C-alpha cells in the first residue's frame, strides 16, 4: 500500500477536475494536444477487467495496462476549466468539472501572490439586472417606432463649454462664433475599450480594429476603439483609419515613442487621447505584461527588451490632479494642436467624485471626458488579490459623479463614460441604456469583445489565464501556434454582428420611452424592486 503524503498537491486539491470516460475515448489524443496548460497527459493505467471472448460466456479476469487520459497533479499544471478539451473531443469523453471542495487558493500561493488575468471572481453581483426600464410611454405620450423613426445615438467625447461661455456674437438674428471652442467628437455611446497589443495577440487586436473600421465604413456606426497602452502599428497610424482610434497613454508610456515619431506622417487626427490613470480590475496597480507575452513584435511596437513590463502605479511626477491637468492634459492637447479631445480614465474609487469635481472646476477646461472603470473590469494580468479584493462598483459611483455635476449645474460639461463589467451577461445594450439613464454619456466594453472573439473566461473562475501566454483561444497570447486558433475575420464579424444587434436593441429601448435622442440622466425612466438600490441611485422603488 502506498503511503499518503497529505501535503502532496493532487488534482482534487485544484479548482477544476477532469472527468474522463475511458469507454468513450478512442485515444485520438486531441485533448492532450490542444490543452495549452499541460493539465492532462496520456498514461498507462493498470486495469482489472472481466472479459469473455468465446462463443459461450467464459468470463475471465485479466489485468491490463491500458492507455488513458489523466489529469496531472500539482498546481503548476492546474486545469483552468477552459473546456477546450471538451470542445475538440469527438466523443464527448472528457470535460472539466468545477471542484466545489477546491483548496486552490491555498496551494497556489507558492512564495508569491497568485497572478492571473480576467476579472474579479468575488464581486460579480449585478446591480443593473435589478433595474428595469419602467417608465413606458402609454397614453400620456406615444412610444416611438424603433424601425420607422430616426434616433440620434451619439455621445460627446470632449470638453463641453457651458452656454454662457460659448464665444458667440449676436447680430440680432444670427449667432456667429468669434473664438475657438474645445474639440468635441460625437461618437457612438459604446467605446471598444482599451486592450493593448501585448495583452491581446496582434490578431485579436486586429479583429477589434477590423470590426471598428467595418462598422464605421459599411454601417456608419461611429464606434471608436481605444488602442490600449502599448502603441499600435505604424501603418495604421499613418492611415485614414486612425480617426477611428483613441490613443491611450498610460503610466508606462509604452508605444508613445513610435506614436510621436508617426505624428508628422499622420493623415488624420486620432479620435481622441485617453490618459489612463488607473483601471478598475486592479486599481492602484500599474499595467503588467509578463515576459512570456513580450514577443518580438511587442518588443518592436513598445521599444523594449523581452522582460516583464510593469507600468508604474502612477504617472511619473504625477502627485495631484492639478498636476495631471497642467502637465498631462496640456501636453497631450498641445501635441495635436488642441484639435483632439483628451480624456482621462480612472479606476472607480471612493474618491471619484472628488476627482470629477476637480476636473469640472479646472479653469483650463481641457479635460474631455471622465472614464470610470469599475471593479468588474478585466485585465490581461494582475495579482489576484487586486482583482478580487480591491476596486469599486461603477454603477453608483458613476451616478454619484453625475449627481455631483447636477448639484453644480455642470452636467454634460465633462462627459461621463463608465465601464467595468458592462455587458458581462451579454446584454450590453440594456446595461448601456441603464447607465445612460443614470447619467453616463456612454460606456466602454472590453471583455465582451474578446468573448465575441471566442474567449471562454467568466466571473466564476473559468480560465482567466490571460497572463500566462497560454490562452487556449489565441486571443491573449503571443504564441504563434496558439494565435492561429483565432480566425480574425470570423472574430471581427462576430463583433460587427453583435454591435448591429446592440444598436437595434438601443432603439428598442429608446422607442418605448418615447425618446429619439439618448436619455442621458433620465433616471425617471428606471425602476427597481430593490429598495436599497432605489435609495442609493435615486430611482423609483417598485414592487
Amino acid at each position, binding site marked *: 500500500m502506498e503511503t499518503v503524503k497529505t501535503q502532496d498537491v493532487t488534482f482534487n486539491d485544484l479548482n477544476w477536475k477532469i472527468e474522463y470516460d475511458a469507454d468513450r475515448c478512442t485515444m485520438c489524443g486531441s485533448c492532450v494536444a490542444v490543452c495549452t496548460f499541460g493539465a492532462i497527459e496520456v498514461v498507462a493505467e493498470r486495469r482489472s477487467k472481466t472479459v469473455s471472448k468465446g462463443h459461450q460466456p467464459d468470463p475471465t479476469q485479466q489485468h491490463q495496462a491500458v492507455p488513458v487520459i489523466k489529469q496531472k497533479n500539482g498546481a503548476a499544471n492546474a486545469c483552468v476549466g477552459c473546456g477546450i478539451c471538451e470542445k475538440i473531443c469527438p466523443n464527448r469523453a472528457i470535460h472539466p468539472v468545477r471542484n466545489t471542495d477546491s483548496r486552490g487558493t491555498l496551494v497556489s500561493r507558492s512564495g508569491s501572490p497568485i497572478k492571473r488575468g480576467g476579472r474579479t471572481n468575488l464581486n460579480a453581483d449585478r446591480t443593473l439586472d435589478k433595474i428595469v426600464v419602467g417608465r413606458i*410611454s402609454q397614453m*400620456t*405620450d*406615444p412610444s*416611438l417606432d424603433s424601425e420607422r*423613426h*430616426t434616433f*440620434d445615438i*451619439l455621445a*460627446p467625447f470632449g470638453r*463641453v*463649454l*457651458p*452656454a*454662457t461661455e*460659448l464665444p*458667440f456674437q*449676436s447680430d*440680432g*438674428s*444670427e*449667432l*456667429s*462664433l468669434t473664438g475657438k*471652442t474645445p474639440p*468635441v467628437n*460625437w461618437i457612438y455611446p459604446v467605446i471598444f475599450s482599451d486592450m493593448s497589443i501585448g495583452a491581446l495577440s496582434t490578431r485579436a487586436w486586429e479583429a477589434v480594429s477590423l470590426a471598428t473600421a467595418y462598422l464605421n465604413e459599411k454601417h456608419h456606426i461611429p464606434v471608436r476603439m481605444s488602442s490600449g497602452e502599448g502603441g499600435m502599428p505604424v501603418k495604421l497610424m499613418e492611415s485614414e483609419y486612425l480617426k477611428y482610434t483613441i490613443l491611450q497613454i498610460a503610466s508606462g508610456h509604452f508605444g508613445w515613442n513610435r506614436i510621436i515619431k508617426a505624428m508628422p506622417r499622420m493623415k488624420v487626427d486620432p479620435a481622441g487621447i485617453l490618459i489612463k490613470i488607473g483601471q478598475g480590475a486592479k486599481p492602484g496597480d500599474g499595467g503588467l505584461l509578463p515576459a512570456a507575452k513580450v514577443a518580438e513584435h511587442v518588443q518592436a511596437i513598445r521599444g523594449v527588451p523581452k522582460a516583464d513590463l510593469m507600468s508604474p502605479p502612477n504617472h511619473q511626477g504625477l502627485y495631484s490632479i492639478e498636476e495631471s491637468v497642467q502637465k498631462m492634459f496640456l501636453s497631450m492637447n498641445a501635441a495635436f494642436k488642441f484639435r483632439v479631445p483628451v480624456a482621462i480614465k480612472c479606476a472607480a474609487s471612493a474618491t471619484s467624485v472628488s476627482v470629477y469635481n476637480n476636473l469640472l472646476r479646472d479653469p483650463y477646461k481641457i479635460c474631455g471626458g471622465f472614464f470610470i472603470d469599475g471593479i468588474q473590469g478585466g485585465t490581461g494580468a494582475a495579482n489576484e488579490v487586486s482583482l478580487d479584493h480591491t476596486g469599486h462598483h461603477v454603477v453608483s459611483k458613476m451616478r454619484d459623479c453625475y449627481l455631483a455635476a*447636477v*448639484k*453644480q*449645474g455642470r*452636467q*454634460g460639461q465633462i462627459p461621463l463614460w463608465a465601464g467595468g463589467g458592462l455587458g458581462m451577461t451579454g446584454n450590453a445594450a440594456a446595461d448601456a441604456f441603464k447607465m445612460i439613464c443614470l447619467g453616463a454619456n456612454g460606456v466602454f466594453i472590453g471583455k465582451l469583445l474578446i468573448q465575441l472573439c471566442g474567449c471562454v473566461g467568466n466571473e466564476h473562475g473559468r480560465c482567466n489565464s490571460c497572463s500566462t501566454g497560454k490562452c487556449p483561444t489565441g486571443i491573449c497570447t503571443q504564441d504563434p501556434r496558439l494565435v492561429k486558433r483565432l480566425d480574425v475575420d470570423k472574430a471581427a464579424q462576430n463583433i460587427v454582428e453583435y454591435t448591429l444587434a446592440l444598436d437595434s436593441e438601443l432603439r428598442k429601448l429608446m422607442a418605448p*420611452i*418615447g*425618446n*429619439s*435622442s439618448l*436619455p*442621458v*440622466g*433620465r*433616471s*425617471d425612466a428606471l425602476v427597481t424592486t430593490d429598495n436599497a438600490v432605489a435609495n442609493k441611485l435615486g430611482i423609483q422603488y417598485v414592487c
Partner: protein
Amino acid sequence: MCRIGAIKSKVPFHPSEALYLMLPQQEGHDNSGFAMVMQDLAGLFAKYKDKPLLSLACTQKGAKLVEDYMEAHNFRPIFEWIPRGKRQPGLDIKALPYYIFRNYDYPEHYRNAGQAEREALLMDTRLALRKILEKDDQGYVYSFWPDVLTLKEIGDPRDIATYFNLWEKNGDLMAKNIVVQCRQNTNYDIVRYAAHPFFLQGYTLCANGENTFYTKNKEFQKSLHRGYVGFESDSQNFLYTLHYVLHELKWPIKYYKHVITPLPFEEIEHRPDKAQLTAIRQSLSHLEINGPNTIIALLPNGNMMTCCDSKKLRPVVVGGDDTTLAISSEVCGLNVILPNRDKSKDIYPNEREVVVITPELEVQRWKQ
C-alpha cells in the same frame, strides 16, 4: 393632451373671445379649469401700463401677508380691480376668498433704476410673495409685471367665467393678447401653479403634451436661474428654457427651437451654421425636450410664437384676418371666433417650423 390657444389682435378684445376659442375644443379632461395671461391691456388697466400689476388668489390671511410685505418693501398700491361676478350657488369653481389684481408703483429708490434692475426686483418680489403664501397654503401669486394680468382657477371654465363676470363685454377687461388653457393637471396633483400658461419676467408660455425629458430639464434648470422654481408641470421647462435662451443668453429667437428640438447630427453636418448648432446642441443638451408637444409663447416685445416637438406629435393651427390672428390646438376653436377668415391661409406648422406673429400681425415663418 390638453388644448391650448392664444389670440392676438390689433384692437383690444375681451376674454370671452378666449373662452369661445377654447370651449369647442373640449375633450376628455378639458374644461376642468381656466387659466389665461393677458398682455398689452386696455380698459381699466390702460392708464397703468407701466406699473407692475400683481395677479394673485389667496385667503384673507394671505391678502394681509401680501399687503404687509409690499408695504414693508415700499411698493405703493395705485389701482386695484376687484372682479365682481355672479357668485351664485351651483357654480363649478373652487374659488378662493380673494382675487387681487393690483397695480403698484415702484419703490422710491427704483424710480431711476434700469430695466434689468426692475425686472429682477419684480421677479424677486413675486418669488418672495410665493414663499410667504406657500408656507401655510394661503394663496397663489401668478404674475407681477407691468401690463400683464393672469387669472387661474379650478372648475368649469364657463362657470369660472360667470364667477368673474367674463361673459359680459363691459370694456373693463381688455387686451391685445391672451394666452389661454382650460385644463387642470392630469398627470400629477391638481395645483393652481401647475396650470399653464406660466409666466416669468415678461415671458408667457403654455404647452400641450408630455415632456419626457422633464427630469433632466429640471435638474439642469434648477441651477441656471433663481426664478426657475416650482416644476409642478413638465411644461414649465419650456418657459424656463425660453427665458434662458432669450433673456439670459440673449440669443436670437430662432435658436430656441434649436435648443429644445435640435436637428439630428446628420442634418447639422450639412448646415452652413454647423459650428454654432453643434456648440448649442452640446452645451444645452440637458434642455432638449422629447415627447409630444406644442408650444405657444408670448414674448415681452409682444411677439407671439408657436412651434412643435421634433416629430410633430401634437397639432396646432394658426389662422385669422387682418385684425386678429389666433393659435389653437384644434381648428374648431378658430372656426368659432374667426368664422369668416380665409381658411386656405391657415397655417399648420410642421415639426421643424417656427411661426411668429408680430404686434403688427405680420406672420413670420421659418424652418429651423
